[in-house]
């Protein structure tokens, strides 16, 4: 057996919510029988973004905020890979906001786990786009990624989990991996992953989370209804968790499927001259 990069021990503070994501991801990948060499974990920059170092998988440490652009590139170039992007709320919703919104629209079949701790952990606790008013002087209303995700008309899987609830996490992550492996498009999971050092919300969140599937009228195929359920839940001071959108569409709607059908794609094409010679000569002959 060839020796390959070994995982290093997590660099997180003891008790950090990110441990939950790591454990759940390990479990879900195993349950979904993804070979480690077929799984690509794209990490952001932040405490959360180092997650790929702690697993025996292909890992690419992207630039701050660019993990989704890189992840989409990976998937389109080799649709055979299972691609999971994971990073922080600062990474995803501040510097990465443009790519975040466009990821729903592009709808490539990748999983994105945004590890939301309502702060910038690695740079020591500044407010992030999801921070509450008053946190470290924050005066802007917190961004709600689920509401915005629901506003983008594309057949994405949308969910929120909580690191204090590993069972749901594993189930949702498993569903998301499966969803993307079926080529059905973008699967977004916001995981509430407390930063015990700068913003310890474990207790608060445990009290506040509310599983939307328990709310009367729950129908994850109906954007408009879910938008209302989420807003109402938030108005009651609770945080909705669970699957917020599970598209009706079951066909492989993923961008890579639309672009490539069943072709192998750029990474696995034979690019030597011989097999392509006829096509090349045709192209060149068309020059006038």
């Amino acid at each position: 057996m060839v020796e390959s990069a070994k995982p290093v021990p997590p660099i997180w503070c003891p008790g950090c919510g990110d441990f939950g994501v790591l454990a759940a991801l390990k479990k879900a990948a195993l349950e979904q029988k993804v070979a480690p060499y077929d799984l690509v974990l794209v990490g952001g920059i932040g405490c959360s973004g180092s997650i790929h170092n702690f697993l025996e998988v292909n890992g690419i440490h992207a630039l701050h905020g660019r993990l989704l652009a890189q992840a989409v590139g990976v998937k389109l170039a080799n649709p055979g890979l299972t691609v999971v992007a994971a990073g922080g709320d600062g990474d995803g919703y501040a510097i990465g906001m443009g790519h975040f919104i466009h990821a729903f629209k592009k709808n490539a079949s990748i999983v994105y786990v945004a590890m939301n701790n309502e702060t910038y952990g690695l740079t020591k606790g500044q407010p992030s786009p999801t921070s509450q008013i008053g946190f470290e002087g924050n005066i802007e209303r917190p961004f709600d990624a689920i509401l915005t995700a629901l506003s983008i008309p594309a057949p994405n899987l949308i969910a929120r989990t909580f690191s204090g609830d590993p069972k749901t996490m594993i189930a949702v992550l498993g569903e998301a991996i499966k969803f993307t492996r079926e080529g059905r498009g973008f699967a977004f999971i916001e995981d509430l992953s407390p930063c015990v050092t700068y913003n310890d919300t474990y207790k608060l969140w445990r009290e506040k989370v509310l599983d939307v599937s328990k709310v009367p009228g729950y129908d994850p195929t109906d954007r408009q209804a879910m938008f209302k359920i989420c807003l109402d839940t938030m108005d009651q001071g609770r945080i909705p968790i669970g699957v917020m959108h599970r598209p009706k569409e079951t066909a492989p709607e993923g961008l890579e499927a639309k672009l490539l059908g069943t072709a192998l794609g750029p990474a696995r094409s034979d690019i030597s001259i011989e097999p392509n010679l006829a096509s090349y000569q045709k192209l060149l002959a068309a020059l006038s």
Partner: protein
Amino acid sequence: MPPLADVSVMIGGQGGDGTLTVSDLLGRYFRKRGLYVYTSRNVLSRIRGGHADASVRASRDPIAAQKSTVDVLVAFDQEAITIGASELAPHGYILYDSTAFKSDLPNATGFPFATLVGGALGQPIFKNTAAYGALSVVFGFDPAETRAVIEERFKRRGGEALEKNLKALEIGRKAALEAAGLADRYSVADGDAHDLVMTTGNQAVALGFVVGGGRFFAGYPITPATEIMEYLQRYLPPLGGVVRQAEDELAAVNMIIGASYTGARVMTSTSGPGLSLMTEGIGHAGTAELPIVVADCARVGPSTGQPTRHEQSDLSHLANLGHGEFPRFIVAPGTPVDCFEMTVDALNLAERWRVPVLLLLDQALCQNTTTSPRFDVQRVHVDRGERLTGDAVAQLTQYKAYQFTESGRSAYAPPGTPGVWAEITGNEHDEWGHVSVNPTNRVRMMRKRMEKMVKARDELPAARLFGPADAKVGIIGFGSTFGPIREAQTVLEARGKPTRFLQARTLFPVPVHEIEPFLKSVDVAYVVEHNYTGQFARLLRETMPAQHAKLRSVLKYDGSNFRAPEIIAAIPEVA
């Protein structure tokens, strides 16, 4: 007048007047007559209205630059005359659309093209084809071939479009034939250049990318780079490739980085503003050792600058871009064939050395059309470096994505290779790809990366030399200045003033091994470039300070590209 061996027609008007169509039709005709053709344009960054002009030049000799004088000027607006008159040759003549304005110039004839065509066809926009018709009379074109050009050009649009254009042609011809003294005013000598293609640098780059094995492209529209993406949108999908218009340049460069990680051959193309935005991404590729090619179609900077105009002022940025230090190769093609072949080189170099390769182009090279020898797929060689397949990996005991090696190149097994995983990062890392702050490792990794610029030296595109080896006046240039410099050399040669021209094709790392001997061989060297500070000359001074006294800069940064006489005039030793 004797037949012209080198003819130039300029067509000016408001955006939407169809000046580009006239130059295109003329170009097609001249090519049928075995001439070398160069067409260029000078447009505003707006869709309609505002003055714009197009030029076509045809010659019995190879050319890749505008002529310094205009033989015939076609004016659809007054501004065309204001601008064009100063360039008109002493024997030159002006045809103008008298629907739009009147001119008192002695060497000008007005035709109410718009009115004539509008009356006959109901649509004045065909006035451009009428002007082509009038020109065909002025130059004494063969009527059948003149017509054939229209048929070729409009056959795809077919039906009514073709018919109306043919009618407009006749209207123009008739008007010119009826005007006194215009018929056969000039004649153009036929040439013997055949089996050439008419293409732009952008198209050549797109073709080079495909044939060089490029299969993943992401970009964002920007003048003058957009056509590369547009060509690839046609070329790549049938080959199983992917082209994406990204949401911005940050996404574009990061998408190709992700795709490169999987082992695909990738490229993006952009111009100055997009390039600036890609700075962080290019540095990431350099550190993470992910091969990418970035084509920069330079235009007038800084900032939004002049989007449609010509400059070569991105070189300093390219050579130094990015915080920290990482290796990069900057290669600069000078002709369409260069564009084709060096895009392949760029892909090979990027993958072999696992570095970002920056393909530096300029607006004139990108968008002007040149007659070019056909591209030769036989000369293309795809070299993937130490790329590991599953079988090769199985033979290993260890797989380290950043392994220190004698050659300076680490083998790479893309994700999906059974048994191994690629751990890739833009943080400083050890051989395994694990984040590391160990000072010894840091120093080794820096050297590993930076020494690629030394070790790859002999694989980088070589400079080309033109002119006698004993000439004492040197000229150095890159990119589209190739055309006017070669032309200047020819003129000077004829005057008995030989020069030696080094066409640099690798600009960074500066090919000292090529340029130093060249500098030593001449008394003085003129570095011709389109920027204010003499960017390539600055790089030469930094790397070959001992030769600095020989260096002179010939600079132009007004948005237009050099013409041969300007270069000659700037060299006192021969001017």
